[in-house]
C-alpha cells in the first residue's frame, strides 16, 4: 500500500475506533466499574469487530496496522473506558513477542487464533514481581517435550485469555518462555484479583501442574527468557502510555465540561484563575504523555531503541494521570468525590499503571541506568 493510502487507512481506523468507543464503550464505562466486569456481549462484539487483530499481521488474519497506529487507537478507546484498552494492550504486547521470537510452527498454530482469542504474557509469581531471576516455575526436558510446573499470579487477562506465555527456569537454571493453553491437561485457573480499578480487565492466577508441551512451544531459545520478558515490558509500556493519555483525555473533558457548566455564585468556574491553573496542568500532562508514547511507538516502528522512552511514557503518564485526576476531582468538588461521577474510578484505573508492567520506581531506575550509560 502507498504511504498516502496507509495514512488514509490509519485515519479510517481512528474513525472506526472512535465510533465504537462512543457507541459501545463510553455508555457502559460506569457500568463496567460498578459491576466489575464487561457487560454481556461487549467483549464478543469487540472480537466480532476485529479489534483483537489490529496489530496482528495480515498473513495470520489480522489487519497489520503498525504499533504507532495501534497505540493511537488504544488512546481513543481508553478515553471511553480504559479496561478494554488494557485488555488489548496485554494481548498486543504478547503478539509482539510471538512475532519477534516465535518459530514458524508455533506462530502458525497460535497466531491465527489471536483474531478471536486473547494471548497473555505471565511472569509474576507469588514470590516476586518484576524480578524474574527468583521465579520458581520449572521446565523439565523429557525427550522431545517439556514439562511445565508452577504458579503465575496477577496475569492481565487471566481467565479471559486462552493462550499464555510463561516464564520458567530450566533444570540448568536458565530462563525460557513457553507457550501453554487452557485446554492442556494440568492447566487450571486460580483466583481472580479483586483490584480497585480497571474493573473490566480480569487479572488472575494460573496453575500449571506438569503440563506437557512439545519442543516447538519454546518461545525463542533457552536462556532468552529475561530478554523476552524485558521486551514484553517495553512493548507493554508504549501501549500503557497510550492508555494513560486516553484516561487523561477523559479527565480533561470532564474538567472542561464541568468548569463551563458550573458557577461559583454568578461566575462560571472556567473564568476563575484557580480553575484555569488546574485545567492547564491537566492539558499539559495529557499532551506530554501523548508525545512520549507516540515517540516511543515511532522509534519502535523505525527499529530504533525505544525502551527508555516507553518507560518515561508509563512512569510520567501513570503518575500524572493519578495527579491530574485528583485535580479534576477538586474542580468537581463534592460531585468529584461521588461514585455517581466517573472521575474517582479514573483515578483508580490510572493507579494500576503505577504498578503494572514494572512499578514507577523500576521505570525510573531503568531510565537512570540508560542515562548513566549514555
Amino acid at each position, binding site marked *: *500500500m502507498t504511504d498516502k*493510502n496507509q495514512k*488514509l*487507512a490509519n*485515519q*479510517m*481506523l481512528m*474513525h*472506526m475506533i472512535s*465510533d*465504537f468507543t462512543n457507541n459501545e464503550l463510553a455508555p457502559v464505562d460506569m457500568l463496567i466499574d460498578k459491576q466489575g466486569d464487561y457487560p454481556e456481549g461487549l467483549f464478543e462484539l469487540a472480537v466480532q*469487530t*476485529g*479489534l483483537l*487483530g*489490529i496489530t496482528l499481521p*495480515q498473513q495470520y*488474519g*489480522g*489487519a*497489520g*496496522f503498525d504499533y504507532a497506529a495501534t497505540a493511537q487507537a488504544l488512546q481513543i478507546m481508553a478515553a471511553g473506558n480504559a479496561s478494554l484498552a488494557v485488555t488489548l494492550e496485554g494481548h498486543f504486547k504478547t503478539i509482539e513477542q510471538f512475532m519477534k521470537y516465535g518459530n514458524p510452527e508455533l506462530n502458525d498454530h497460535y497466531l491465527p487464533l489471536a483474531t478471536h482469542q486473547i494471548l497473555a504474557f505471565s511472569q509474576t509469581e507469588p514470590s516476586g514481581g518484576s524480578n524474574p531471576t527468583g521465579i520458581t516455575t520449572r521446565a523439565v526436558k523429557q525427550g522431545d517435550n517439556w514439562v511445565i510446573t508452577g504458579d503465575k499470579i496477577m496475569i492481565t487477562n487471566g481467565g479471559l485469555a486462552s493462550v499464555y506465555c510463561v516464564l520458567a527456569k530450566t533444570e540448568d537454571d536458565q530462563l525460557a518462555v513457553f507457550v501453554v493453553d487452557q485446554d492442556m491437561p494440568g492447566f487450571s485457573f486460580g483466583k481472580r484479583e479483586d483490584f480497585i480499578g480497571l474493573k473490566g480487565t480480569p487479572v488472575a492466577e494460573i496453575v500449571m501442574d506438569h503440563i506437557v508441551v512439545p519442543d516447538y512451544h519454546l518461545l525463542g531459545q533457552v536462556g532468552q527468557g529475561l530478554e523476552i520478558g524485558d521486551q514484553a515490558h517495553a512493548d507493554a509500556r508504549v501501549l500503557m502510555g497510550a492508555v494513560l493519555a486516553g484516561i487523561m483525555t477523559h479527565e480533561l473533558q470532564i474538567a472542561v465540561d464541568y468548569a463551563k457548566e458550573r458557577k461559583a455564585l454568578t461566575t462560571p468556574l472556567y473564568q476563575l484563575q484557580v480553575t484555569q491553573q488546574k485545567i492547564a496542568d491537566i492539558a499539559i500532562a495529557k499532551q506530554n504523555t501523548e508525545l512520549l508514547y507516540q515517540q516511543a511507538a515511532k522509534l519502535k516502528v523505525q527499529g530504533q531503541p525505544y525502551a527508555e522512552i516507553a518507560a518515561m511514557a508509563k512512569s510520567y503518564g501513570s503518575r500524572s494521570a493519578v495527579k491530574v485526576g485528583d485535580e479534576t476531582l477538586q474542580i468537581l468538588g463534592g460531585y468529584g468525590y461521588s461514585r455517581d461521577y466517573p472521575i474517582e474510578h479514573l483515578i483508580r484505573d490510572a493507579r494500576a499503571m503505577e504498578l503494572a508492567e514494572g512499578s514507577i520506581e523500576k521505570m525510573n531506575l531503568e531510565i537512570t541506568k540508560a542515562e548513566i550509560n549514555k
Partner: protein
Amino acid sequence: MKIVVCIKQVPSTNDVKIDPQTHNLVRSADGVINPFDKNAIEAALKLRDQTNGEVILLSMGPESYRESLLEGLAMGADSAYLLSSRALGGADTLATGYPLSQAIQKIGDVELVLFGRQSVDADTGQVGPIVAEYLNVPQVTFAEAIDLTEDHHLIGKRRLDAAEQEVEVELPAAVTVRSEMNQPRYATPRQIQKSFEKPLTVWTEQDLDLDPERIGLAGSPTQVTQVYAPAAAKKRVTMLTGTPEHAVQELLQSL
C-alpha cells in the same frame, strides 16, 4: 444477485456551511457516510450473503467522497463507483438522480438498488424515487424490512407516519431504507486495510455519455433562494409553587 447501494457523504459535524452564491451546502472534505445509507449497506450485505451476490457502492461528489466509499468497502461491499467531475457539481436531486441512474444502467444487470431513506444534510428523500423513475423500476420507500421471494419478487414493509404497509414488487426494484431495518456493522480493521485492494472506479460525465443540459447546476430546476434557521419561538414557562392544592388552583385559574 447484483445490488447497488447509492451512498452520500454528509458533513461529520453540525457546523455546515452554505455557499453564498448558490445557497447550496458546501461539501466539506471532512465527511461521513450518511447514517441511513449505512443501513442500506447493511441490508445489501445481508442479502448478498443470502443470495451469494455482489454489493456495489455508487456515489456522486468530489474526490474526497472516495473516503466514504472506502469505508463502505471496509464494511464489506465488493466494489465502488464514484461519479466525479466539475460538470456534475451543484446538482439538485433531479440532476443527481439522472447520472446515478445512467451509471446503474452502465454497471448492468442490477436487480436491486438501495438508498438510505434520506440524507441528514439536505433531508429531501427524493433521490431514491427519482432514480427508480429514471430506471423505470418499482420502488418501495421508507422500508423497515425487506425479504426476497423465490419467484424473484421483493416484499417490503413500509413504515409511514400513521400506517404500515406491505408491498410486493417484481425485481429489479429500488428501495429506500429506514434505520429501523438493521444495526449497521462496523468496518473492521482488517477490512479497512483490504478496502484499498478492492476496485474503486471513478467515472465522469464522458464515461456515462450524459446529456450536458441535464447535469450539474445547469441541469437543476431547483433554485435555492435562501437558507435560514427558523427563529426559535419563545415559550413562556410559569412555575407553580406551594402545596399541590394551591398549584392546582393556580393552574385552573390560569386555564
